[in-house]
């Protein structure tokens, strides 16, 4: 193998540096109608009436649709594979447009017009009457027995409550001599901020509804559109071109179901529905805010005897991915330190805030912050060494999770920790920084994580791939898994080339997914592409190779079993000398007058395994106490993602995740007006994501134990890099100042409050 593990350039890089890469908005034709959604200006209540007269009088208006006109169908939006088991189906709790308003900015009507200006003008002229109720914005309020139900199907506003217990927490916590540490930790609502906004356009062709959309999950969106409109799966066709980032937001049906419906209202004429940046913030999905209460009992030898966690997840207005995230979080709590008795309790609660959905690492950045902050609270109170304590309690090779049965097939976590701690000089600096005085203080901090690569056994993992041999000996590679910037197309090309014995330039990957022709895959989410879809690619390339060799065997009068393909040449197994180029075999196979055979392969991989990726972040910071600011002096993530398929794209993933983690830890949060529930910083100026100036130099390193279950020894990488950054920063702040902050972001406002409380500033 020489292709896997190299730093091959991205297959789509040239298109992207020349402007040739076409994204959804670049594909919209000139005579496309423009749709805009009317969003509610209350957070909780009912639409009682519309006055549309003035809106209809705007020249260029083609149609106005309100919540009273749409099909009376409730549908789910989460990008999960559909479950044929009713109990496990996603919650169907919204309509295309909603009469019952559940958040500020809920979709209540839509205008279709000949151009942007007419659509915007008409939207402004719609008058709405509401029956208004006070918004319920916090989990605490929503869980009060007197709270108004946000969905009638869930009168107590609890979407789901789940719990587990490994051993007996009660019993285990009675052991004599235990040290009890308790803490409450909170994480904020943040947004994905993909630079391409949420958008789509829809039209009808050949009796079907076609939606071209910036989505991570074309096949799932097809199913959701069919459910929302009450038509067959086959009546919908989704096309996904290049997309400008998703990070989980586009792992949900966003504009597509409504847009699919709107084109049917205008006889199948093309309709574009592109959200503004402000709508993308307030009306798509956000990351769940979570609150955790953790109690730990520790033995004098530094092992956990018993732990419990109570977790509350703010779901916002609609279920979307719902309980899956907080369930993932409390499961992660158990898996990272699977020692002693463990008890978990998790609630997902409806409120009148924007709907929370999937976002990079799916609940684990939340628990990662809480758990790793808690571990440092333990070591700072007990005097245990932070690395020693973690090593004693963390997951080891061979661990089998008692509930999900997910097994630790490989781990390089210990090596990751050693590598990172050497880089930063952790032990020495931690001692040195422990007792500083003065306005500028330094600190070092660390945090570890484990992360499940795919979604098995919680959900179905299935992926298909197709390869078609061309007459010149090159091959099309078609996958249902989507490129969303993470580099999937590049690693699939590498995997196919490596397996088939082709050079990568002979693999023509089809980047666009079209549900009418693309093999099935559930899409880009979890960190499943290289692991699950990668295996489908490997199997398909093997099958293609077998078929090529069978034909070559006939041509050469040799047993195909003795043959192999190396660098586009058919060779004797274990030999280099070319017997015949693949191109010649391909040409003959296509045009032979006696034996024409269009060589193609298609395979499905139904994955029934999963594996843990691991990693650590080490950070060194300088805290300016009077200014209440944190400057990151050095930061490093070390990952065990198994074998690295492409070093350059892998580093890129780590950098991007770290940058997002820095924002999560230091600056990002969405703010809401407590009176109305309206989002106050729904734009890229007031919402502080990292700019080039805010981001320090980022360091990425890998340890590469081969995972026996990955197609090439590989494990999850796309999501994990965000996880350990915020807690590492928070723990560095604890080292620098002795102040244990229980929430993020660690922005000046919060630090002022915390430093004042601790008496560091007056």
């Amino acid at each position, binding site marked *: 193998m020489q292709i896997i593990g190299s*730093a091959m*350039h*991205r297959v*789509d*890089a*040239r*298109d*992207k*540096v*020349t*402007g040739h*890469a*076409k*994204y959804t*908005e*670049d594909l919209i034709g000139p005579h496309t109608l423009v749709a805009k959604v009317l969003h509610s200006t209350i957070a909780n209540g009912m639409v009682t009436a519309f006055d549309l007269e003035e809106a209809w009088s705007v020249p260029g208006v083609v149609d106005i649709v309100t919540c009273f006109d749409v099909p009376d169908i409730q549908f789910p939006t989460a990008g999960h594979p559909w479950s044929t088991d009713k109990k496990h189906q996603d919650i169907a709790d919204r309509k295309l447009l909603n009469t019952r308003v559940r958040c500020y900015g809920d979709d209540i009507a839509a205008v279709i017009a000949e151009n942007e*200006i007419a659509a915007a003008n008409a939207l402004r002229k719609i008058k709405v009457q509401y029956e208004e109720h006070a918004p319920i914005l916090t989990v605490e309020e929503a869980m009060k027995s007197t709270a108004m139900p946000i969905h009638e199907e869930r009168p107590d506003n609890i979407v789901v409550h789940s719990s587990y217990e490994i051993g007996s927490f009660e019993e285990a916590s009675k052991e004599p001599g235990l040290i009890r540490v308790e803490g409450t930790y909170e994480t904020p609502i943040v947004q*994905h*901020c*993909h*630079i*391409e*906004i949420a958008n789509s356009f829809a039209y009808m062709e050949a009796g079907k509804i076609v939606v071209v959309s910036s989505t991570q999950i074309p096949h799932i969106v097809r199913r959701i559109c069919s459910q929302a409109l009450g038509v067959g799966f086959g009546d919908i066709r989704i096309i996904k071109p*290049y*997309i*400008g*980032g998703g*990070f989980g937001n586009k792992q949900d049906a966003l504009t597509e179901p409504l847009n699919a419906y709107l084109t049917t209202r205008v006889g199948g004429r093309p309709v574009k529905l592109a959200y*503004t*940046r402000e709508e993308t913030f307030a009306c798509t999905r956000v990351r769940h805010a979570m609150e955790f209460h953790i109690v730990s009992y520790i033995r004098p030898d530094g092992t956990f005897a018993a732990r419990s966690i109570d977790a509350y997840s703010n779901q916002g207005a609609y279920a979307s991915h719902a309980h899956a995230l907080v369930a993932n979080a409390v499961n992660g709590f158990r898996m990272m330190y699977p020692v002693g008795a463990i008890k978990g309790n998790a609630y997902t609660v409806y409120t009148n805030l924007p709907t929370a959905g999937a976002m990079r690492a799916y609940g684990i950045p939340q628990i990662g912050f809480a758990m790793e902050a808690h571990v440092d609270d333990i070591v700072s109170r007990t005097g245990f060494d932070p690395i020693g304590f973690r090593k004693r309690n963390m997951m080891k090779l061979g661990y089998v999770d008692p509930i999900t049965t997910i097994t630790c097939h490989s781990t390089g976590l210990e090596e990751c920790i050693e590598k990172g701690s050497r880089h930063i000089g952790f032990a020495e600096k931690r001692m040195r920084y422990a007792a500083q005085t003065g306005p500028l203080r330094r600190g070092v901090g660390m945090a570890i994580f484990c992360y499940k690569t795919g979604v098995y056994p919680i959900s179905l993992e299935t992926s298909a791939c197709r390869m078609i041999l061309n007459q010149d000996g090159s091959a099309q590679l078609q996958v249902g898994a989507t490129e*969303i*910037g*993470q*580099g999937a197309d590049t690693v699939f090309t590498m995997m196919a080339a490596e397996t088939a014995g082709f050079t990568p330039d002979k693999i023509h990957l089809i980047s666009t997914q079209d549900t009418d022709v693309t093999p099935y895959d559930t899409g880009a989410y979890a960190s499943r592409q290289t692991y699950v879809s990668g295996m489908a690619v490997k199997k398909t390339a093997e099958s293609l190779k077998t078929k090529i060799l069978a034909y070559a065997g006939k041509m050469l009068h040799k047993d195909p079993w003795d043959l192999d393909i190396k660098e586009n040449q058919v060779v004797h197994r274990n030999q280099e000398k070319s017997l015949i180029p693949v191109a010649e075999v391909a040409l003959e196979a296509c045009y032979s007058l006696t034996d024409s055979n269009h060589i193609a392969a298609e395979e499905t991989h139904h994955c029934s395994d999963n594996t843990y990726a691991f990693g650590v972040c080490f950070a060194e910071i300088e805290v300016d106490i009077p200014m209440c600011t944190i400057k990151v002096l050095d930061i490093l993530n070390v990952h065990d993602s198994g074998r690295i398929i492409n070093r*350059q*794209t892998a*580093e*890129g993933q780590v*950098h*991007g*995740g*770290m*940058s*997002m983690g820095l924002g999560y830890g230091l600056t990002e949060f969405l703010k809401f007006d407590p009176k109305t529930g309206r989002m106050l910083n729904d*734009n*890229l*100026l007031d919402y502080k*994501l*990292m*700019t*080039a*100036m805010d*981001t320090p*130099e*980022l360091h990425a390193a890998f340890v590469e134990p081969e995972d026996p279950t990955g197609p090439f020894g590989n494990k999850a990488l796309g999501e994990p890099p965000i996880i350990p950054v915020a807690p590492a920063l928070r723990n560095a702040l604890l080292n620098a100042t002795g102040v244990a902050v229980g929430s993020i972001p660690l922005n000046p406002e919060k630090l002022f409050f915390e430093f004042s409380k601790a008496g560091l500033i007056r």
Partner: protein
Amino acid sequence: MANKLITCTINGKKKEYFVDVRSSLMEMLRGSAGLDSVKHGCDVGECGACTVLIDGLPYNSCIYLAIWAEGKTILTLEGLSDVKGAISDIQQAFIDEGAVQCGFCTPGFIMSSIPIITSEHPYGREEIRKQIAGNLCRCTGYVKIVDAIEKTQKKRIRERQES
């Protein structure tokens, strides 16, 4: 609303367009001129995805009225490749350094980097970061983007010194 005839130079060619006086330069470039590298990420001057050069300086074309372009010289990403499709050194550096992920911010970053790589001043990494701080990228963490710009500007300074 009135339309107006605008004459300007785009990517080296004289162009004339009738534009709605309310429309932005971004709309004119994406719409009338068909230059899709000019990306639409916010419409309000926050993200930098729509960055183009106007008389040599980077602007957010979404908050620059099309009618202000009268008589101006505009360069978009399309103008960096030659007619045969050969790409410029800065584009190649973005490929080589792995500075591209989803690619949506890429045209804007490359355009913002032109004044840096054509300057006589040797920009340090911190200065480069400051110059590109108006362009947002959610994918890369900026490191490899800074690498690509730094490498290209060093190469160009070297080339100038050699010639």
